């Protein structure tokens, strides 16, 4: 495993642009290997997304990054600002946590405190006193679009507001890296878009983000790079569009309706597609040029078709496989 040594410093040219790096992470519980050789690095201002089906090892990876779970192998470093010596997880857990922010999958806000008190109490865990929080709390509430709810308790907030308060709380220490575990799960579209907008703002100001998500549109929208995990292993990584281009044909034609499944067996149609997949009652034709196929499908007006570009969801399903595949 060249290059990925545990305690050695990063090569100088890389130390400049790597904020957080995990190399060769492994974790097993009994006989079950949950994380198996996962490596990644995050640069300042970069958003790295970890996607994968349930049980892929996403949460365990995050827990190891936070020092809550000790890896059985591998190393995690954090580069403090100003080029100081590397900090190592879990040995330097508290020093690293002083510089990162975390939004957990389930809200863990204090139900007995108002929004503002939630921020102030949380700031105290970072050693932030009244003066600092007098300045930061109103700014964070404004960032979270919660200024008008400063005195409301979390129980009086909508799901989207609670998530934004969790995000504001994770920012009390002005972190250089945010760890987000499924930040928009359970939110309605308006709330998700507002959340994404705020995360984009943070990325633009140089904050790095490591997030896990089940939403491919979220991953595509926010992430500079993706890490696709399955059964604890990295099965793909790269920029979202590059991954799609690498693994998929650019266009997809979905066909569904009575008799659609039979199409997958028709040699004339198969010849027009690079690859054919069947999932449930729908046939997916992956192709580089959809028009001949669409013309052929016009002969079958009782079927419904959807022509769209290939997206991350297609990639995800292709890589992690939850459907019957029939290669053309």
């Amino acid at each position, binding site marked *: 495993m060249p290059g990925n040594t545990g305690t050695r410093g990063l090569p100088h040219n890389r130390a400049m642009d790597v904020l957080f790096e995990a190399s060769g992470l*492994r974790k097993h519980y009994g006989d079950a290997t949950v994380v198996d050789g996962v490596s990644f690095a995050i640069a300042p201002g970069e958003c790295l997304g970890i996607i994968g089906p349930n049980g892929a090892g996403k949460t365990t990876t995050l827990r190891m990054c936070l020092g809550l779970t*000790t*890896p059985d192998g591998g190393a995690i470093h954090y580069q403090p600002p100003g080029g100081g010596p590397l900090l190592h997880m879990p040995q330097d857990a508290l020093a690293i946590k002083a510089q990162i922010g975390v939004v*957990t999958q389930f809200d863990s*806000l*204090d139900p007995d405190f108002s929004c503002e008190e939630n921020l102030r109490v949380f700031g105290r*865990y*970072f050693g932030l006193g009244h003066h600092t929080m007098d300045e930061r709390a109103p700014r964070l509430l404004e960032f979270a679009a919660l200024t008008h709810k400063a005195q409301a308790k979390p129980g009086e907030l909508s799901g989207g507001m609670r998530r934004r308060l969790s995000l504001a709380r994770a920012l009390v220490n002005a972190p250089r890296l945010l760890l987000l575990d499924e930040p928009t799960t359970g939110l309605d579209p308006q709330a998700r878009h507002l959340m994404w907008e705020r995360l984009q703002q943070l990325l633009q100001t140089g904050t790095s983000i490591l997030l896990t998500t089940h939403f491919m549109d979220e991953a595509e929208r926010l992430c500079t790079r993706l890490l696709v995990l399955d059964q604890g292993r990295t099965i793909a990584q790269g920029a979202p569009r590059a991954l799609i281009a690498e693994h998929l044909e650019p266009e997809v034609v979905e066909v569904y309706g009575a008799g659609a499944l039979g199409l997958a067996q028709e040699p004339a149609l198969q010849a027009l597609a690079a690859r054919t997949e069947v999932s449930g009652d729908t046939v997916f034709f992956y192709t580089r040029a959809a028009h001949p196929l669409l013309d052929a499908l016009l002969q079958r007006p009782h079927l419904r078709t959807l022509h769209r570009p290939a997206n991350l969801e297609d990639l995800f399903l292709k890589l992690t496989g939850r459907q019957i595949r029939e290669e053309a």
Partner: protein
Amino acid sequence: MPDMQPPRTPSPWRAPGLSLRWWPVFLRNLLVWRKLAIPSLVGNIAEPLMWLLAFGYGLGALVGQVAVEGRTVPYILFLASGSVCLSTMNAASFEALYSAFSRMHVQKTWDSILNTPVALDDVVLAEMLWAAFKALFTATAILAVMLALGISHSPKLFVAWAVLACAGLMFASIALIFNALARGYDFFTYYFTLVLTPMMFLSGVFFPREQLPPVMHALSGWLPLTHAVELVRPLFMDQWPAHPLRHGLGMAVTTAATYWIALALTRRRFAA
């Protein structure tokens, strides 16, 4: 695949970490409680006082005097000194079980704190100190009422107050063991009915331990609540305890040992 110096999962039995980082966690609990202090105070002292009045004056009229170490004292004084220990035990236990469990398991308050530069050891220490503080608060209120009722005016009540503070630390530490093991609130019912209730009857709160059969009497000498009662009762009677070292050491060792066990079990719970 070779790994360079893979980190080892540290033993949950390593020495407790002690730092001042417990303070913001303690303060958080204090700020929540401040909002509910008056109703909680009423609940905490109303019940023990009802016991005291009903049993002390009602039963006391039947019992009259009770012999303690060669002296006879009014039953109300006997009962008051025991019941303030009992209330301290109950207050610390309740806080370190139901309330700590709510914060740890239900509200996930601990999880959010663990994402900040505060370690699990600091959180457990804060919870222990917090439960002891609440117990001492209850004990102080009860002592004040007892003073007002004229049950005891001994200046040694200040020493009793310090003993009760230590009793709070001890019972908070013991309860945190069960907190670390709990899967739900129901589990605490066992602790209250199978541990605390028998201890209440065996530790000389309501009647002298000398009334117990010899085996039970010998056994009861080792109970944590007995240590507290044996120290506090003479102080109520303006006397010094007969065996301060035995019972003081008993409390200190019990506190240190159970705190360590509670911390190790909590570390194990959170390492999963």
